[in-house]
């Protein structure tokens, strides 16, 4: 298919992640509501919210600097690019040479950096509170993610996602302890990074317990829409990442035909739905942990990543 094919797949991928991410968030909300015997918001509510916010006036605090205005766009751009790099339904992406796990980690890290800065920029106590908590979590979540990336790279021989996915599809992958550890670690990091229960509560109205919501408390209008969409993209990104690395079945390989790509899309939607249901189930069965328990929780992810990496050095077979 060549360049044109790769380019079209890349563009489709970018649009798919952008358009599907609010749906995933809406789906998780609906499933959670149903588990609580509530009717819940309509599936498409996140889209409506985004449109509503985009139309509203953006109020900026008096003390806000240019950073506060620029941050939503920077965060959105970094997250969107990161989400566009993860193979969702096909591996033959134009940018797959740069679709490196370390790049994705760095992009997400930059987004977080700007969000935390923006939280502190307006000088309200909640913004600072949220930023300090977010950074406390990040100091453990980021190394954990890096360790997991190393594990995968050591197993698959590359940090490039399409190569990792290709390796995972091949018969030589086998059943490995280190892979299991990496999966658990990645799930923990994903829960923490996406501000889900038990680390943070996306539905809370209690300003003192917020982490992510506290940082964005001062945002409104199109700025808030950008940040909301970025959060939704981030959730989709992590689900796609886990799906791409650990359940890559159905991914259309490079130079595959149109039908293979259709299968890829169907498989991807199926994976998203499964992940959404699992996430909602998990969130319904646990309470939020104390802020100071979160480092323990993330420490588990870090240790698992570290152990998995070490295991790879000790034994090729594990």
């Amino acid at each position, binding site marked *: 298919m060549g360049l044109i094919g790769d380019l079209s797949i890349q563009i489709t991928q970018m649009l798919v992640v952008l358009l599907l991410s609010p749906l995933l968030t809406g789906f998780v909300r609906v499933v959670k509501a149903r588990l609580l015997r509530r009717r819940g918001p309509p599936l498409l509510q996140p889209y409506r919210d985004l449109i509503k916010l985009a139309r509203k006036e953006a109020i900026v605090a008096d003390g806000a600097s240019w950073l506060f205005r620029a941050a939503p766009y920077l965060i959105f751009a970094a997250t969107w690019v990161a989400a566009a790099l993860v193979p969702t339904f096909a591996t033959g992406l134009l940018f797959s040479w740069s679709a490196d796990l370390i790049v994705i980690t760095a992009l997400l890290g930059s987004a977080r950096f700007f969000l935390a800065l923006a939280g502190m920029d307006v000088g309200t*106590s909640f913004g600072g509170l949220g930023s300090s908590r977010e950074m406390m979590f990040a100091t453990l979540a980021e190394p954990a993610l890096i360790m997991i990336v190393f594990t995968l790279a050591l197993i698959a021989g590359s940090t490039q996602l399409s190569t990792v996915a290709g390796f995972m599809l091949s018969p030589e992958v086998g059943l490995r302890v280190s892979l299991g550890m990496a999966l658990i670690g990645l799930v923990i990091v994903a829960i923490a990074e996406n501000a889900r229960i038990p680390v943070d*509560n996306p*539905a809370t109205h209690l300003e003192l*317990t917020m982490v992510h919501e506290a940082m964005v*408390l001062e945002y409104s209008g199109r700025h808030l829409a950008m940040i909301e969409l970025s959060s939704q993209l981030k959730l989709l990104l992590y689900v796609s990442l886990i799906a791409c690395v650990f359940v890559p079945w159905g991914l259309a390989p490079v130079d595959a035909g149109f039908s293979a790509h259709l299968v890829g899309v169907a498989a991807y939607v199926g994976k998203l739905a499964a992940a959404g249901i699992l996430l909602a189930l998990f969130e319904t069965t646990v*309470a939020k*942990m104390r802020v*100071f*328990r979160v480092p323990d929780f993330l420490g588990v992810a870090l240790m698992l990543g570290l152990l998995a990496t070490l295991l790879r050095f000790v034994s090729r077979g594990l």
Partner: protein
Amino acid sequence: MTNATPILGAFPAAPDHMPWPRRVVDEAIWRVLSARLSAGELSLLGLWGDAGMVHMAVLGGDPVAVTVASLACPDGHFPSVGREHPPAIRFERAIRDLFGLEASDALDRRPWLDHGVWSARTPLGRPGAPEAPTPYAFLTSVGEGLHQIPVGPVHAGIIEPGHFRFTAAGETVVRLEERLGYTHKGVEALMAGAPIDRAAMLAARCSGDSTVASSIAFARAVEAALRVAPPPRAVWLRALAAELERVANHLGDIGAICNDAAFAVMLAHCSVLRERVLRAAANCFGHRLMMDAVAPGGMSVDLAADGPKLLHELVATIRRTLPPLVELYDDTASLQDRTVGTGILKPELARQFACGGFVGRASGRSFDARRDLVYPPYDRLRFEVPVRREGDVDARVRVRIAEVEESLTMIVQILAEMPSGAVLADLPGADAPGGEGIAVVEGFRGDILAWVRLAPGGIVDRAHLRDPSWLQWPLLEAAIEGNIVADFPLCNKSFNCSYSGHDL
């Protein structure tokens, strides 16, 4: 505890003060009372102002009894009780704001209810021209790395307004200071000069979730002042309504506490149960919260014909549904991790503040107005008063669960033993004599104190309602100390003090 009567016995009792005596004392005895309160021999029930006078209700003796002491302050000053007995501080600040009577050697002279936005100063004393609002001086904490977090009065969620000023070292709370009074409605001023039925409506609206208990307290105080006994059936119906209110509020709060730990399943199930109680109440008494069902003289409505059947079904439903929920609460380790050991209120503080309700009972203070200052029909009901000593969020949840079970038992007993007959006694109309009455009634939060002085002709001259939250709000400040900021909503919800009932 010793009784206050021996100290006060020498002083003349005010005529027509029912059912407990009110004695006009001098400054020396007032100071003796303060000392006895400070020594823990007596408990402070309430401290409120009047025209040129302050009243103090204390609890003590074995069996416990209420005594009211009154001190005339012709020069607008009275000896501070709060100086020796801290629970009185906020009462004194409120008296100063409302009546202009000054606690002469008070430690804290900041305003409390008056935020400088009223149209007149000291509206219940000699109204003065309003002053420009001055900045409120919060208490300071000095230390390295301490920072302040102001929260409210407008919150991110839809809750009542109140300002909380946290001083934190990182995430740990060093000091919490509350500022309340944002929902001051001037209820006492509105009651003064109002006919009894109008004042009863106001009493029912002090705090919506305690409307039945507040109404009963006010009605009992009026009935005591007028020496009217409500018909037996009305007394039993009042207890029925009060227990339904208690069950509804406890169920709602148990769910809400768990929801503040982001455990929404409990809230969902408990909300369904609470809704069933409210619907049963609507079917039985014509109003979901049973507002205005209780009237001075009895009940304004009788139980609906199908009421007993509905209530038996309701009790059966809750008894079937609640145990699995309690089990879920017990078995969810992540939830227990949040509630156990969080927001501990020390038993000594609960005793010192005479903290009522589940907050006091979760911290070892075994006091329940239904048992200790018994009023009908509780003298004929069998029930236990659950007490725990841990004083944490978990203990408060468990006391509430146990209270729900006790209330269900009482509802069944009431339905079985309720007499028939009229539900409303006639109050003397225009020819009614004046009088004074006091009542203490156990609401779901704790003991509600109501005091009225009636002018001849069925007019309220002066009324005072003291919500249990008055003695619980200060303890929240103590309970949160040393906890982390993020646990405050959980602690606050486990206290669930009333803003509206406090601010009045």
